[in-house]
């Protein structure tokens, strides 16, 4: 009766604000379950709110972008701000990964949990220093031991998925699809052979 203007507070809007707050303080990607537990709300409503946030935080519209990564959601900088970001911060996790480190990382990502002897068997050289370096970067982590107190096994971490922009390990391409190298090798040899014949 007093005629006071009442702001109608949409509950999904309020949940979206809570999720914004959670994402901005989170040190890693948060899953829908993480968000629902922290917000004490229903996972389905959390997904609705995330949809709202995704349309708000996207490339071209905001300097902060909501991305689906590492089995959850996280904020990152918009790509257009990358150069400014590069002047401000260093990226020690992904900087200067050697060929040996990348190969070891690939083996662990595809086959993990996997032990150092198994990695060495595939790569044909000892994997100790590559494994230690990747553990230090946080891209792989210990994941128990082989049966009966055997060698320590390693698996890739959520940080790995985040750094490589993967929603999950299932986003890795099939190994068989990658192995066209042999065919390429043959073709090059045939090319030279053909040139000589001519």
């Amino acid at each position, binding site marked *: 009766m007093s005629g006071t203007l009442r702001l109608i507070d949409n509950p999904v809007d309020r949940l979206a604000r809570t999720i914004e707050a959670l994402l901005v303080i989170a*040190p890693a990607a948060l899953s829908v379950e993480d968000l629902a537990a922290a917000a004490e709300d229903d996972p389905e409503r959390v997904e609705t709110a995330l949809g709202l946030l995704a349309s708000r935080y996207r490339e071209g519209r905001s300097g902060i972008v909501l991305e689906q990564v590492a089995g959850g959601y996280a*904020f990152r900088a918009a790509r257009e701000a990358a150069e400014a970001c590069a002047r401000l911060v260093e990226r020690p996790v992904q900087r200067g990964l050697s060929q040996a480190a990348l*190969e070891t990382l690939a083996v662990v990502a595809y086959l993990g949990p996997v032990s150092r002897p198994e990695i060495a068997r595939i790569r044909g*050289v*000892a994997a100790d220093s590559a494994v230690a370096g990747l553990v230090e970067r946080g891209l792989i982590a210990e994941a128990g031991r082989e049966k009966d107190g055997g060698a320590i096994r390693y698996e890739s971490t959520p940080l790995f998925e985040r750094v490589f922009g993967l929603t999950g390990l299932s986003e890795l391409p099939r*190994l068989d699809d990658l192995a066209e190298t*042999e065919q390429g090798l043959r073709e090059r040899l045939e090319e030279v052979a053909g040139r000589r014949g001519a």
Partner: protein
Amino acid sequence: MSAVAELPLDLDAFEGPFDLLLTLVLKEELELRDVEIVEIVLTFLAERGEDLEVDGEFLVLVASLLELKARGLFPEEEEVPFEDLDADDAAGELAERLAQYRRFRAAAGWLEERLEADSDRYFRLGPAPLAPVPDRPLAPQQPESLAAALRALAAEPPTPSLRHITLTFPPVSLFLERFRAVLRRRGRFVFDKEVEALTRVEQAVAFLALLELRKAGEIAIGQVAPFEEITVWNNAA
């Protein structure tokens, strides 16, 4: 220097003449694993003349390199039961392993490209992991036991004894004078009787005085048996 030794190479891992490559590999300054031998072969084929001697030399060198590289791919400590396999199986096993390695190498290449494509994706990495939800309910507690514990803490502590601070030692000279006086008067006395009224500390000092007098030769001391009375008399008497 032969034509093979001077063969100019331009590989991912190495650029220079073939003999330098061999030197670096043998000195283990260059990982043979990183050297694409097919590139060496292709370079040789492109440069090849009509000299069969050179061809032969090249074949021997490349065969050695291949063998070295193959050995490097299979560490010695690993038991490879190749002896149990016939030639076809062994070749199959070898091909399978090489194919597997090649797949992972390709996967590593894919990761590298991915990283390159994502070089403009910046995000914050928190220093701390997410805290686990605290879930440690306390076992039921009795208020009485808390009260009892506090009561024990609230009780007045016993007053500490200060007796050791007031403990004083009479000077030895006091007893020297006293014993000399007694001996002048009586010629002899029984030590135990003389000090029986004193405290333990005074008795100890009195005994020291006795020893002093004995050392100086002023007195003689007699005791019929251990723990019996000590009799003291004037030595001059």
